[in-house]
């Protein structure tokens, strides 16, 4: 094809020049800027032709209504959630979500050190997506409100399609600020968060995709719970957490169609942070269309983490930081799940209505957190249920 011929001819000289560039870089370097400016200029010059024959499309207009339930470990959190997404003039897509969490908390921490309580958390968010050529820019703001914790976050994300739309590169940044309070005392402290995201999705074949995602999170401020107690020499003391935390996570995923109407997916995530927690998350699953209107998904998720440096079930030594937060202990959790989607109505080009039922059972097993009431290592099971109706139009 003319394209390839011209390209081969055009790349002969630049490739030789690029090889010379590498040799030049390897032997000597002037200022740090000069060392990087040349390859970057070359990269940008090379990127010009991919300035698009194609462009990004905005997400489809849709509305979702969810009922969610989490019941396990003595905590029951349930509530409705709504999402509406509408595009304006084919340029901008606006999204609004509303999420309510009604929590009835009789968890092991609460029951052993205080008394069960009920409270409601309300969260809303607004966002805008703007498609410009082969980039998608997204901006969103989220606000979460409960009697003793307020959180706000601003996110900016950019997605860029390159290489004939076979590769998608995503960059994102979120800045969060929380106000931390305690019942009876009001808001006494703050917590700030910075999240940096980078993701690359690559289409491997017409039926297979793979992606890599990386996220770095930094927190500063009050990072614990004012209600939780730690245990030192058998005595309960208020917990003392560091005021900073920095974490990294990298996730590898692949998904592909192995037979007509059947797909499988697998992911692995490795997490590490400055509190010395190391965690592995594995998920494998499959999806299959059954009949004209049903789609089933089944998956198994396994999570395993090692404890934070300052975590003790019962600290044998006085340390600067001490916590008995079971979420920082050594434990694993295995969660099989099942999802069913029913396509209720489908008018192509106009609208589509679907109903979804998702269920997951999580089993947590702690290796160094004991149930104070029994003296045994703690473990519990939790049920997660999501009932959802979605419409795209």
């Amino acid at each position, binding site marked *: 094809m003319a394209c390839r011929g011209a390209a081969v001819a055009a790349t002969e000289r630049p490739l030789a020049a690029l090889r010379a560039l590498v040799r030049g870089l390897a032997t000597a370097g002037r200022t740090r800027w000069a060392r990087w400016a040349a390859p970057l200029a070359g990269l940008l010059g090379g990127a010009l032709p991919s300035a698009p024959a194609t462009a990004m499309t905005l997400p489809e207009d849709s509305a979702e209504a969810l009922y969610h339930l989490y019941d396990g470990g003595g905590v029951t959190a349930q509530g409705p*959630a709504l999402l509406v997404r509408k595009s304006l003039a084919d340029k901008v897509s606006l999204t609004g979500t509303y999420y309510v969490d009604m929590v009835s908390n009789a968890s092991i921490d609460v029951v052993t050190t205080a008394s069960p309580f009920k409270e409601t958390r309300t969260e809303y968010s607004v966002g805008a997506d703007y498609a410009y050529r082969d980039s998608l820019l997204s901006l969103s703001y989220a606000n979460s409100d409960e009697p003793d914790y307020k959180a706000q976050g601003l996110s900016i994300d950019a997605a860029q399609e390159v*290489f004939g739309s076979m590769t998608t590169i995503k960059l994102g940044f979120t800045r969060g600020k929380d106000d931390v309070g305690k019942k009876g005392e009001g808001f006494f402290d703050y917590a700030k968060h910075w999240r940096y995201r980078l993701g690359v999705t690559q289409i491997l074949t*017409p039926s297979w*995709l793979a992606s890599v995602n990386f*996220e770095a999170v930094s927190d500063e401020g009050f990072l614990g719970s004012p209600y939780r107690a730690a245990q030192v020499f058998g005595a309960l003391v208020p917990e003392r957490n*560091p005021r900073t935390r920095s974490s990294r996570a990298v996730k590898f995923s692949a998904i592909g169609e192995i037979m007509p109407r059947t797909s499988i997916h697998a992911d692995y995530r490795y997490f590490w942070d400055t509190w010395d927690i190391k965690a592995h998350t594995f998920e494998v699953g499959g999806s299959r269309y059954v009949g004209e209107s049903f789609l089933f998904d089944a998956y198994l998720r396994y999570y395993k983490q090692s404890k934070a440096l300052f975590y003790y079930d019962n600290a044998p030594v006085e340390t600067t930081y001490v916590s008995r937060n079971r979420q920082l202990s050594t434990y694993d959790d295995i969660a099989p799940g099942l999802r069913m989607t029913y396509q209720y109505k489908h008018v192509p080009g106009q609208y589509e209505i679907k109903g979804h039922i998702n269920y997951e059972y999580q089993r947590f097993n702690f290796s160094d957190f004991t149930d104070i009431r029994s003296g045994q290592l703690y473990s519990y099971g939790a049920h997660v249920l999501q009932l959802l109706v979605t419409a795209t139009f």
Partner: protein
Amino acid sequence: MNPISPEAPSAPPPKAHRLRTDNAGSAAATWLRRASAWLLCASAVAFTGCGSIEPWVKPYERERLADPILQTQRQALVAKHNEHIHEVREGARGANGVQGGGCGCN
């Protein structure tokens, strides 16, 4: 990134000044420069699209990729709820980024 030591409040380690005459360091730096230069060259070739490597999945072959069966996160509210219940109860967080792919139209 140093783990916080429980014995003493975290004090920044004394700054180590890089000496220009450090031979082992310059060999590593050279290797790193070479590797990054090759990576940039490879990316430059990959990003040209009409270069020596052409996109091998054509826009008219993306029927499967546009199908929900090849998307792990289909509904935003479900993804949000899942992220919430995992992040609140587990020590790990992040890297659950949205997946690309899709129809690649327009």
